């Protein structure tokens, strides 16, 4: 069997991988509005724990695969104005909606009606984006377009250093979060 798998078999795998993704989002608790919103209120650290762990574990694994030529990088272009402005809008939307795109769709499938209505809002947002794309492309995406760059290249530090640093930061953050949770439990 040669990798990567393409064509029709890849389409079946899309459903399998998506299924696992949706299952993990639900079991992780992030199909809950309360869990996500309380992350941004710093009252629940589930989102941070899941994402940071996924980034560190995923990062180490993908770097190893890449080192052995078993994986390609897929870097999104650093269009600095577009990314910053888009992320700022996204952050507002994420707290207002209480979900991100993946968790919103997953939550809708677990019976959340407001997540479903928000998913219709997502379709509307995508529609407005498609219709405004040529303007955005010309006036926003072209500003500060640095290309498909990675932190190791920009800082001239090897991948291993970055990943090791992320691992250490993650462990420190998790230790602090655990401490905060314990203190709050005692206070309650």
């Amino acid at each position, binding site marked *: 069997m040669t990798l990567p798998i393409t064509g029709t078999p890849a389409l079946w795998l899309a459903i399998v991988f998506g299924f696992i993704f949706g299952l993990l989002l639900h079991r*992780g608790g992030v199909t809950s509005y309360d869990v996500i919103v309380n992350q941004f209120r710093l009252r629940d650290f589930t989102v941070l724990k899941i994402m940071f*762990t996924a980034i560190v574990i995923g990062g180490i694994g993908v770097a190893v695969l890449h080192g052995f030529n078993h994986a390609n990088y897929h870097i999104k272009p650093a269009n600095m104005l577009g990314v910053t402005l888009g992320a700022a809008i996204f952050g507002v939307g994420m707290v207002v909606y209480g979900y991100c795109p993946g968790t919103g*769709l997953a939550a809708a499938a677990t019976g959340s009606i407001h997540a479903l209505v928000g998913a219709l809002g997502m379709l509307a947002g995508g529609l407005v984006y498609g219709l405004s794309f040529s303007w955005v492309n010309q006036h926003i995406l072209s500003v500060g377009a640095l290309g498909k760059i990675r932190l190791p290249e920009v800082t001239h530090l090897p991948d291993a250093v970055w990943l090791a640093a992320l691992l250490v930061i993650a462990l420190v953050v998790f230790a602090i979060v655990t401490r905060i949770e314990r203190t709050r439990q005692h206070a309650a």
Partner: protein
Amino acid sequence: MNTNSSTSTGVPTAVAPAPAHGWLVSPRWNPYIVGVLLGVLSWTVFAVVDKPLGVSTSVSAASGAVCELFGYDTAANSYWKKVVPRWDYGMLFLVGTMLGAAASALLSRSWRVEVVPSVWKQHFGASGAARLLVAFIGGALIMYGARMADGCTSGHGISGSLQLAVSSWTFFLTMFASGLLTAFVMFKLIPSRSQS
């Protein structure tokens, strides 16, 4: 969370579910374990189909499909010429995501209709119409923002950050800061509707 039944005397009628299968029906897993499994899923997806995990591109492709329903020619649009509305890998991944979440909720008996979540209710009241309207607006905002940034929490937040992309870390940190500020405005500055 009424997963185990008990009699009116409060004595459990049955012993706890078989421990070997407990994790299968447990509605909530340890977040660190979920994070590890998501990390392993990302390796698998990178190696097997040579694609990163991502959601928002295909949602905007679905928006194009909606436009087509109204007779709009997406082939003439500079965005949907690139992000073609069709049943491709990314779109089927979304179908899988919804199936997986639904199966997980049914299996753990936590599938339930929710119109107004409890944190919202505490602060902004029990009105379903208000919550649905705001959810719609929020949904539109995340998708517009995600497309402008070229990724969302999955494409940038997880897949991009783990590849140490400059764009993705910029997205992740900016999004988080913006979310913290928004939560402060919504939950601290706006007075709570119901006292609790």
